[in-house]
């Protein structure tokens, strides 16, 4: 009994300590990105970094549903773009009071005389801020509900989300008068009176992106570590069994899909601020699947892996496609194959298992491997140390 208590106390203590350590590392990295990196990189590279950090937020969302819950969404481009459009609409409505027309310029071009009703609320920033998160979340929730309610899952779910991507792509492409069609919304002027394109403002957006990324990481960490997280993993590993244990997976799946959609919307908004354009092009099929491969490269079901994967793949993409534009698709296709066939648990997963073994054998300390999770289990470790005496 006493041993048990001691064990409980010890794990709680180590848990708290490792949490503090993790928080410390995260804050240190964030500070590094905010303070030191701008000194090292050119404005252009820093802007790229900011965009990729925004993409890392989507990657976190994908990891939440794919890595932890086992739902492969091929439609996150939709949520991403909707978030982007919500913010872009607010930006397009920042029209100086003395301007000749109080409409975004493309509307006058297409002969629209009155602002469409659903543009009206986007005059208000608080509404926009909520919309950036809620529109994608509600859409994801609705879509998730009608799909999961009928126990449609696996490949079917993936195909349906992909079809949804095409649908929204077609819809936004076709609506010149409402959304400027293929060209998308661009040419933003001011936000809160600050010029969107000036380096100073861009730095603020960069810092904001990092803060949001840290917040998203904390949220995902909190979600996945508690009972809810265990339930998600249970749904991933054996949904039928979870159902037989008395849980209804539908609600949980809908909720996590909606959260993931909201993260994608946030990422889309930050991405739009830093690229200065949002167009239906980011709803094409390829982009949504690319998002999945970021997570796969970094490591499924590891949050750090998702962020790392998004950054690595995107930097590789921007350097490689600058240098070899012709054969970039070969690289990308090869990446899909290599990751799926040879690196199923991604970089982080590889480091945790085989990389560690390799390191040990290099140092000549070839340990006899037992079941890997046993090695990491605190209780097993405790018993090994104490039961022997």
């Amino acid at each position, binding site marked *: 009994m006493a041993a048990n208590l001691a064990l409980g106390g010890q794990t709680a203590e180590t848990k708290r300590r490792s949490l503090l350590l993790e928080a410390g590392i995260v804050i240190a990295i964030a500070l590094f990105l905010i303070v030191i990196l701008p000194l090292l990189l050119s404005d252009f590279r820093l802007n790229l970094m900011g965009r990729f950090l925004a993409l890392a937020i989507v990657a976190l969302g994908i990891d939440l549903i794919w890595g932890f819950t086992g739902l492969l969404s091929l439609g996150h481009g939709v949520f991403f773009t909707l978030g982007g459009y919500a913010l872009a609409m607010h930006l397009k409505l920042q029209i100086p009071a003395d301007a000749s027309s109080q409409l975004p310029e493309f509307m006058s071009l297409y002969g629209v005389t009155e602002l469409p009703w659903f543009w009206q609320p986007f005059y208000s920033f608080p509404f926009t801020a909520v919309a950036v998160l809620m529109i994608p979340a509600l859409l994801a929730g609705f879509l998730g509900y009608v799909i999961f309610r*009928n126990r449609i899952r*696996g*490949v079917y779910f993936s*195909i349906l989300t992909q079809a949804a991507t095409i649908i929204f792509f*077609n819809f936004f492409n076709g609506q010149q008068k409402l959304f400027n069609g293929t060209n998308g919304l661009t040419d933003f002027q001011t936000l809160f009176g600050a010029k969107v394109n000036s380096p100073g403002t861009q730095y603020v957006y960069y810092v904001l992106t990092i803060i949001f990324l840290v917040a998203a990481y904390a949220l995902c960490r909190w979600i996945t570590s508690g009972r809810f997280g265990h339930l998600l993993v249970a749904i991933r590993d054996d949904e039928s069994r979870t159902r037989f244990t008395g849980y209804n997976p539908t609600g949980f799946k809908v909720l996590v899909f909606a959260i993931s959609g909201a993260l994608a919307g946030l990422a889309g908004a930050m991405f739009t601020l830093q690229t200065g354009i949002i167009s239906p092009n980011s709803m094409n099929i390829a982009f949504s699947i690319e998002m999945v491969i970021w997570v*796969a490269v970094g490591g499924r079901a590891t949050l750090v892996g998702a962020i790392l994967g998004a950054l690595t793949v995107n930097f590789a993409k921007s350097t490689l496609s600058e240098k070899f534009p*012709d054969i970039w*698709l070969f690289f990308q*296709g090869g990446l899909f*194959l290599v990751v799926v066939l040879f690196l199923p648990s991604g970089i982080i997963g590889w480091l945790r298992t085989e990389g560690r073994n390799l390191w040990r054998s290099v140092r000549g300390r070839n340990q006899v491997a037992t079941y890997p999770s046993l090695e990491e289990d605190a209780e097993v470790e405790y018993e090994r140390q104490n039961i022997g005496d």
Partner: protein
Amino acid sequence: MAISILDGIFNGLSVGSVLLLAALGLAIVFGLMGVINMAHGELMMLGAYTTFVVQNIFKPLGAFSQLYIFFALIAAFVVAALMGLVLERGVIRYLYGRPLETLLATWGVSLILQQFVRSVSWVLVVNLALFCLLYFGGLWLVRKRPDFEQIRKLAIAVLLPLSVGIALTVGSLLGKSFGLTATKPWFGAQNVDVTAPKWLQGGLPIGGYQLPYTRMFIMLLTVLCVLGIYFFLNKTPWGLRIRSVTQNRNMSACLGIPTAKVDALTFALGSGLAGVAGCAVSLLGSVGPNTGQNYIVNTFMVVVVGGVGKLVGTIVGAMAIGITDYVIGTGMLSTLFTAIQPVSNFFAFFATTSMAKVLVFVLIVVFLQFRPAGLFPQKGRTVDA
């Protein structure tokens, strides 16, 4: 009025039959292996490019050249089937029971195939052939040694960079000595055009309207393919094996059916059908590296609506989607409902090709609320069905 309805039915059927031809192979493979092949569209594209090549080979033959389409059909089937076989043996068989990973892997293959037709040239072909010869030949030689399992990793680590290096060097030497003849891409990024044979140009006049012969040819082709597949699945020993593995893989394996062979055969067959579909599509318009992308989502929807149990599900699904898509897209419904203004306006809003897809998708999602497993689901007692 009668003419416009006839036109609607004919065109809807024709759109549906292209869809059916494209979805047939996909549905069979999905039914058997639970795998959605994202590279299916690219296999169609390969078929279309094969048609283009065959057409150019037949051009100097004079009157005989008008028959190229029949040879092109066979060639497209064979090329796509071989590609499918390579895909199954090289990638998909390692991913059994992981359908989502298969989705990603086949997407990677589709990207590679798209870029391949853009940049394929003699140098690339020589490169590839040389690499395969060196690498796989080398592995084959090493495999004969008794201690192969121990030196496997070492052998790969030596052979892979060596064969890549040799292939690239030879390729660049070739490029330098022969210049543009060796490095010029065969097709390039532009679209290529297949001209339908003379006897398929024009159409059958009915009233003031013409039924194009190419469309009728495609419908005929679809009917023949469906009949052929039906016969193959129901009347031949291999068809029986395919059906039994579709129903219960483990039990079939226990009864001595070579499931690996069945998988490879089915995948090749499905891919071959994609090739035939590509040949048909090439008659309708010009063909480019992205041709396949236009078809994948629609064909996936056919599989979702049709269910995986029966061939007839695919047929009904394809026709339903094809006809609905066409009828909404051309705005026929809005003219039918002119008496009721709001309904007419509603349909008029969706009366473009892209907006019709929006409405069709909504209809599919509504349909799935009632039949989540499609029109003809696989019957069974498993929980996961």
